[in-house]
């Protein structure tokens, strides 16, 4: 059906039921810079944006300004950043409940995510999704997810659509170590492998499924070995080394783009905080020594060291990136706090494409 491909468009976000609201086009949906130095500085900035955003929202939660389930990505920034360093704006990512980093790395606007966490109308999901469902279809970020492992079949479906359209786009599916023991993980991986779909499966192994260490959940500590069972390449990478992540993903994505099918990548990393903002690591019996060891492998100073040692950037440049990121965080809070709350009856919209009769609401 090649002649008919141009007919197929991404599902329109137009809302016949919601009067007068236009989809907002992101100004931040710029591609990752092409030049090598610019790409490295983008990685540094992106990891810092994720770090500072997620550290700041913990404070805001403590101050009672934002509510709900917030899952911190602090410590794991190199994975989202390294992965997205080799994605195009028209590629897709499928995220998890720990999705802030994925959105920012895919080009998301911090202020619109902050507004979503505040439950305001300028949030990506107009306050209907919050942290756990943060989504930006316009950026190819197909959604965080409150159900562990549910994104794996969905990513397979996105890969199927790409296959049917015949484009060279790719999908990256993020999931954690907790997801690999869930049925749909196996179902989706098997389908992607059988159909040779352009999906890269990235397991963010942060060693804990909610509170429980991985060794109590699975016998095999090296999750990438599971790829063999599906007949696809399985690779392992230091998930705290953004350059290593970028390299391994570049190879996997290139294989997918040229019709080589899926790859399974296990990125070994560590979650500094507890499962969610209301259960800090110290409160769930995490070993202080373990935390300290992993903090010594913090991906952000590691990249800074690389940039300084190779003369790619000066300390002054890196400081000024940090200052800009901190300003962006504060500006995003101001933006969110200035954004209006939705009228409560907006809760009745977006159930269906068309607003049902009043009697049904």
């Amino acid at each position, binding site marked *: *059906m090649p002649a*008919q*491909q141009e*007919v*197929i468009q*991404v*599902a*329109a*976000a137009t*809302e016949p039921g*919601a009067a007068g*609201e236009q989809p907002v086009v992101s100004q931040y949906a710029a591609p990752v810079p092409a030049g090598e130095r610019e790409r490295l500085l983008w990685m540094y900035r992106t990891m810092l944006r994720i770090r500072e955003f997620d550290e700041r929202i913990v404070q805001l939660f403590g101050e009672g300004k934002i509510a709900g389930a917030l899952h911190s990505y602090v410590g794991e920034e190199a994975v989202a950043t390294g992965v997205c360093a080799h994605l195009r704006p028209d590629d*897709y990512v*499928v995220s998890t409940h720990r999705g802030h980093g994925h959105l920012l790395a895919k080009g998301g606007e911090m202020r619109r995510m902050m507004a979503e966490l505040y439950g305001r109308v300028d*949030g*990506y*999901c*107009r306050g*209907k*999704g919050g942290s756990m*469902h943060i*989504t*930006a*279809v316009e950026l190819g970020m*197909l*959604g965080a*997810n*409150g*159900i562990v492992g*549910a994104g794996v*079949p*969905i*990513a*397979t*479906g*996105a*890969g*199927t*659509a*790409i*296959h*049917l*359209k015949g484009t060279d786009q790719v999908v990256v599916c993020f999931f954690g170590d907790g997801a690999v023991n869930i*049925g*749909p993980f*196996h*179902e*989706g991986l*098997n*389908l992607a492998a*059988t*159909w040779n779909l352009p999906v890269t499966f990235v397991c963010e192994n942060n060693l804990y499924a909610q509170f429980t260490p991985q060794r109590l959940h699975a016998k095999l500590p090296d999750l990438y070995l599971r790829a063999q069972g599906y007949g696809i390449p399985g690779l392992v990478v230091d998930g705290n080394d953004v350059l290593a992540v970028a390299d391994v993903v570049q190879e996997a994505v290139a294989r997918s783009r040229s019709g080589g099918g899926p790859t399974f990548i296990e990125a070994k990393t560590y979650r500094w905080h507890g499962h969610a903002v209301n259960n800090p690591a110290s409160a769930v019996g995490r070993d202080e020594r373990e935390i300290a060891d992993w903090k010594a492998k913090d991906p952000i100073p590691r990249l800074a060291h690389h940039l300084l040692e190779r003369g790619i950037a000066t300390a002054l440049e890196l400081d000024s990136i940090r200052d800009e990121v901190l300003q962006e965080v504060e500006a995003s809070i101001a933006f969110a706090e200035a954004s209006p709350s939705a009228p409560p009856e907006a809760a009745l919209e*977006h*159930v*269906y*494409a*068309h607003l049902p*009769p009043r*009697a*049904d609401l």
Partner: protein
Amino acid sequence: MRELLLREALNEALHEEMDADPRVFLLGEDILDPWGGTFRVTEGLSTRFGTERVRETPIPEAAIVGCALGAALLGMRPVAEIMLLDFTAMAMDQIVNQAAKLRYMTGGQASVPIVIRTAGGAGRASAAQHSQSLEAWFTHVPGLKVVMPSTPYDAKGLLKAAIRDPDPVIFIEHKMTYGVRGPVPEGDYTVPLGVADVKRPGTDITVIATSRQVLRALEAAERVAREDGYDVEVVDPRTLYPLDTRTILASIKKTHRAVVVHEAPKRGGWGGELLSTIVEGAFDYLDAPIVRVAAPNTPIPFAPEMERYIVPDVAEIVAGIRQVMA
């Protein structure tokens, strides 16, 4: 007008929609030729459109629905076949937590125009895990639409409307109706979702029935016309959500009496919801308590004698009508 089997009407709808829209594709178990699906609804489609657009999947139902959903997010119009309604239990997260809620959770960014075709109902001695009527699971979930055709004409028109619908549709076919023959026009037409059909006009009592029970209600109506002289109106909602309450309430305001019939167990069944809708909208018009004719609250047994005992039949509908008319 020419006549087709219900299964052939569905097959024709799939052919026409795949012809008309390159975004439409099928996925499911055993749907390729030479099998053409467990109930032969997809016969000929893989030969005609190829195995890219008619995609054979492994058995996992969660992956079938999740895959359809992911493709829909990228603008496709997938029609997923879940062989039996019972097996949707394996896909409930993808249906209930994902497909039904994505538009809402994303504040309207995402559309999930998928159709999940599946076969429900008893009658083939297939026992407790292959015979259920689980439609109430889905009518309870905001974000889903639920369709249950009873005739070949409706089956074709409703399936075409479901495929063109921007929201996820659970399309429940009764496995004992695939061989029902009826008039089906050639070419394109749709039956809109949310429009009930008065299958038999009457003045004395309204019988609202779903799926295969519509056919039995029509038989029951003929019998009480002969034996008791009652003039029964039979209403087929065709879609359980969106529900055409206007047609149903108008009928009850005319007849002042109602029987509600479905094959699912009575407790927690969709009939209870329908009855509440009637009471809320037409209480003052009712001359007698409404009676529900439904299965008892048991699983479906294997032995054909017990299975026939469980599933509402014409005699039970007749008894229900006589009880309300008494």
